[in-house]
């Protein structure tokens, strides 16, 4: 087997700023990619929004604290792509949310997530995070 050992599938979208900060599932994916022989990434469900070009989210004010350490999925994805992770966003889930493939960040391709399952045997492991 020459390709990555692991296919990571993320379905859950944004899960919070205060509680998550830097340690979102994309961060976990990077850790798995570096330690488990490489990973590819499929975004499904609400997680497809991570791959859509969007403006910055303003910082969050909690009392006197200005929380500027919220997760930045687009930056996290860029880091994954730079590390050699191949990433896809499920096309049907993009369309369902009103996104078109031309809004995807560079390096992420739209794909039929169901058809990608035909590739599962090429991976040692398929993990839904």
């Amino acid at each position, binding site marked *: 087997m020459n390709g990555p050992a692991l296919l990571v599938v993320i379905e859950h979208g944004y899960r919070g700023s205060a509680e998550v900060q830097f340690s979102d599932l994309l961060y976990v994916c990077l850790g798995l990619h570096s*330690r488990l022989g490489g990973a590819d990434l499929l975004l499904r469900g609400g997680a497809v929004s991570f791959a859509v070009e969007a403006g910055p989210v303003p910082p969050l004010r909690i009392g006197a604290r200005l929380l500027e350490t919220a997760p930045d999925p687009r930056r996290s994805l860029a880091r994954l792509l730079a590390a050699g992770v191949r990433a896809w966003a499920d096309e049907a889930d993009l369309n369902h949310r009103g996104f078109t493939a031309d809004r995807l960040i560079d390096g992420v391709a739209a794909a039929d997530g169901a058809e990608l399952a035909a590739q599962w045997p090429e991976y040692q492991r398929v993990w839904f995070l």
Partner: protein
Amino acid sequence: MAVAGTEPGPFDWDLLIALTAAPFASDVVTTVLRLLDATLRRGARTQVWACGYATALTQRSLGLFKPADVLDLRAVFPSTAAMVGDLLREYPESLLWQVCRFCAEDRGALEHIDGVPIRSFSRFAGRVAASATTVYIGGA
């Protein structure tokens, strides 16, 4: 009993369950305990890597019992820590329950029952490589 899986063996462990889903959001903890019981009864060597809020399951602060049922104060209900502790005592050579340090720290869950080590995430890949089969239960 370790048998070869998709990678060359032999393996130290037959099964690794990476449990990242949170308790109470579903019955995943019940499922995992059932699977542990069943695989251990079959003589398998099984390990659990607890992440996310699953790290809370074996905290020492849970004690042996759940809080009292105010409708039946005489009844006692075991804590998850007690149940895992029982399995560890019954299968000392066949079961390893370990807790991810990062997740435990993030949740203030750093005091665990005897027999539950806290491990750096850097050890996770080694646990996967040492197991014939890994079941990754997402949901963190």
